[in-house]
């Protein structure tokens, strides 16, 4: 609750950050937030979040970049859409969370396991055209290192039963035929997106 601490030191606001956030595709929609708290009471994982979505948007306005991009809030979001359905201002919070994840990764706030998972998933799509689950897992564990691999071994019963029931193919499917074209499309989309953000 650092936000409520009484301190004589001047509070540092980073107004550029609020501007930066409100210029993202969906972040701009969060400007309409009226702080009603409906998302906070509805959220599937709010007990685990550093800040509820409502509070997070308030911190954005206050320009608290480190607290926002360094928080686990967007990473704990499961994209369950409960808040999106209920927000009286029609803010697509799930998509705003996507932008926040995107910003966090781009600015190297990547300490949460979910950031590694997201990157692993995307690498798989980029290299194969499809997300082979075994490949996503392998990339994720490599990124996270030994601690996570140990945890994986602790769950070996789960992996074994999935293998036994034919739910965990070990051989990846073939890359899609149009992989090169897909990669060209992605490259172009990224270039257009950067241009649009300017």
């Amino acid at each position: 609750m650092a936000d409520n601490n009484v301190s004589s030191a001047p509070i540092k606001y980073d107004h550029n950050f609020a501007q930066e956030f409100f210029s993202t595709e969906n972040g701009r929609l969060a400007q309409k937030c009226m702080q009603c708290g409906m998302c906070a009471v509805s959220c599937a994982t709010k007990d685990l979040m550093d800040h509820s979505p409502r509070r997070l948007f308030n911190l954005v306005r206050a320009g608290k970049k480190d607290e926002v991009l360094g928080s686990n809030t967007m990473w704990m979001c499961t994209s369950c859409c409960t808040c999106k359905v209920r927000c009286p201002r029609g803010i697509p919070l799930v998509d705003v969370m996507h932008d926040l994840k995107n910003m966090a990764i781009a600015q190297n706030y990547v300490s949460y396991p979910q950031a590694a998972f997201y990157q692993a998933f995307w690498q798989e799509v980029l290299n194969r055209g499809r997300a082979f689950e075994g490949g996503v897992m392998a990339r994720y564990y490599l990124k996270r290192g030994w601690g996570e691999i140990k945890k994986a071994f602790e769950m070996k019963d789960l992996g074994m039963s999935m293998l036994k029931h034919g739910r965990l193919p070990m051989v990846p499917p073939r890359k899609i035929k149009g992989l090169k074209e897909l990669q060209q499309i992605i490259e172009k989309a990224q270039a257009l997106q950067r241009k649009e953000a300017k």
Partner: protein
Amino acid sequence: MKYSLYPGCSMEGTAVPYLKSIEVVAEALGMHLEEIPDWNCCGATIASGVVGDFTQQVVAARNLALAEPKGYDVLVGCSSCYFSLALTNRRFQTDDHFRQMANEALAAGGLRYNGTLRVRQILEVMINDIGLDKIAARVKRPLTGLKVAGYVGCQTVRAVPWEFDDPEDPVFMDKLIEALGATPVKFPMKAKCCGSSQALTATDIVLAAGNDILQCALDNGAQMLVTPCPMCQLNLDAYQGMVNQQFGKNFNLPVLFFTQLMAIAFDLPPAAWALKNMIVSPYEALAPFGINR
């Protein structure tokens, strides 16, 4: 009735029983499915966290561009794929600026999408295109007395709110269960989130959600759960053992895709039931209907 099928990545892996049952059930109902040729991953709700919504939606749109020449509705089973494809489609149809920009990107791969298709969730298609009467008429093995919790999960009904069912208290799944002769139990957690892709990254979320959902099903007398979502299915089925360990429970509730239950009720060949793929054994619950290992 013809459809373009978008299977999605999970149906090549953890959700194989979904695909196996969908294909045969659809055929039995006179639906003609054509898989979108060379489809790619839709990006789910994951890719946009890395590359942004625009790029993710362009990636998803490649599939719609590949399907557009046929003109059939695009049939989607996975809730995350549905989220991604349905929202992308909507943007093509309602946002001119987006459509132009997205088509500029697609053109780099020699493609274009005009936004003429409909993206449909398979549960919705069963109710609205096929109809409960026709489904009930096709039943050869009525599942009379089987108590089923219809677990819809979150994204299926909330990705595009009010597209086809109540996002807070969905009823389509219960109606379908009824049409198969089974009894849908009261199930307040039918649309609660299962923790989705947090299974690897924050396992506790999935275990806690699983505990709540399974307990709710059990308390209401369910003998099994059925779902239209690959993540819900996987989290509740594969992680049920860990839920038992963590919370000192004794859950033994099979979790099937709703299309598997349809394949059983239609008395289609057992390969389409895909019961061998299930981690929590469904045989005890199905024994009264003459189904044994």
